[in-house]
């Protein structure tokens, strides 16, 4: 979905849960709304290309931690690979993370688990985490000018947060773990 804002002339592309987008176009803003989900914005200042994902690893049923890890690593790897394919270098990548709010008191801390995964992943992969706006109790709208590396995050007040899909994170286009022998 794309919308041209009369206000600033920038094209806005929406990133839904389970999706990722990469752009090197200076007039493109990648935007997403987050509740418990986390979005990681990656940027390579030399290649002037960036990308954002939007993932939900945990659900309300105490997901298997190993399964969460596999989906989380997948969500990150797909985005990183898409950037590498367009000229980015892993060693130059800078990342900001957003989201991970606690949207419903009394429930398991889904947002916290999503934040913890992102921080651990970036530490393990030695990718710089240069900023974050995470936690709290309010939904957020993230706008990311990927080609410029500018990210803006605002609380979404008096608006219903995006619904939490109470099941495993969206699978990749191909069947998960499918095996094909040659």
């Amino acid at each position, binding site marked *: 979905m794309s919308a041209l804002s009369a206000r600033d002339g920038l094209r806005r592309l929406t990133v839904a849960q389970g999706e990722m987008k990469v752009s090197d176009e200076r007039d493109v803003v990648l935007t997403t709304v987050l509740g418990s989900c986390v979005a990681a914005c990656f940027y390579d200042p030399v290649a002037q290309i960036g990308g954002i994902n939007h993932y939900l690893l945990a659900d309300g049923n105490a997901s298997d931690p190993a399964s969460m890890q*596999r989906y989380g690593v997948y969500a990150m790897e797909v985005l990183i690979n898409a950037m590498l394919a367009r000229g980015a270098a892993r060693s130059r990548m800078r990342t900001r993370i957003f989201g991970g709010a606690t949207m419903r008191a009394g429930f398991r801390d889904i947002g916290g688990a999503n934040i913890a995964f992102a921080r651990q992943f970036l530490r393990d992969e030695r990718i710089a985490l240069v900023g974050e706006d995470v936690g709290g109790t309010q939904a957020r709208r993230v706008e990311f000018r990927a080609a410029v590396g500018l990210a803006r995050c605002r609380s979404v007040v008096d608006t219903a947060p995006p619904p939490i899909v109470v099941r495993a994170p969206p699978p990749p*286009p191909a069947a998960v*773990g*499918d*095996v*094909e*022998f*040659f």
Partner: protein
Amino acid sequence: MTEFAPREPLTVAKTIMTVDDSPSMRMLLRVALTDLGYSVVEAEDGVHALEKLDGFQPDLLITDINMPRMDGFGLIAEVRGQGRRSLPILVLTTESSDEKKQRARDAGATGWIVKPFHPEKLAAAIRRVLH
């Protein structure tokens, strides 16, 4: 008849080399494969894998495709070019295009697994090529 020492293992764990530039993915594979009873040797790209394969023969190679220095296609071609025809090679990647599968097939890969891997499907694929 020779008796086994009581504490001597009756079998030797088969060795799987995993090749992936992501430390997180190598860790996930290490945990999954050691849980299945395999011994794991890791490399972070094709060049690193070839260095480790010098004088060493694993029972199975599992490789990513998108890696720096030497990608999975290059690694498979090099390994087959060294005459290692019997070494099974499984590709484990986020890619799923027919064109890339064909490239892997042409290079000499044994099979293709789409990430994120499902532990039981991975175990079944390994059993099929190792046993």
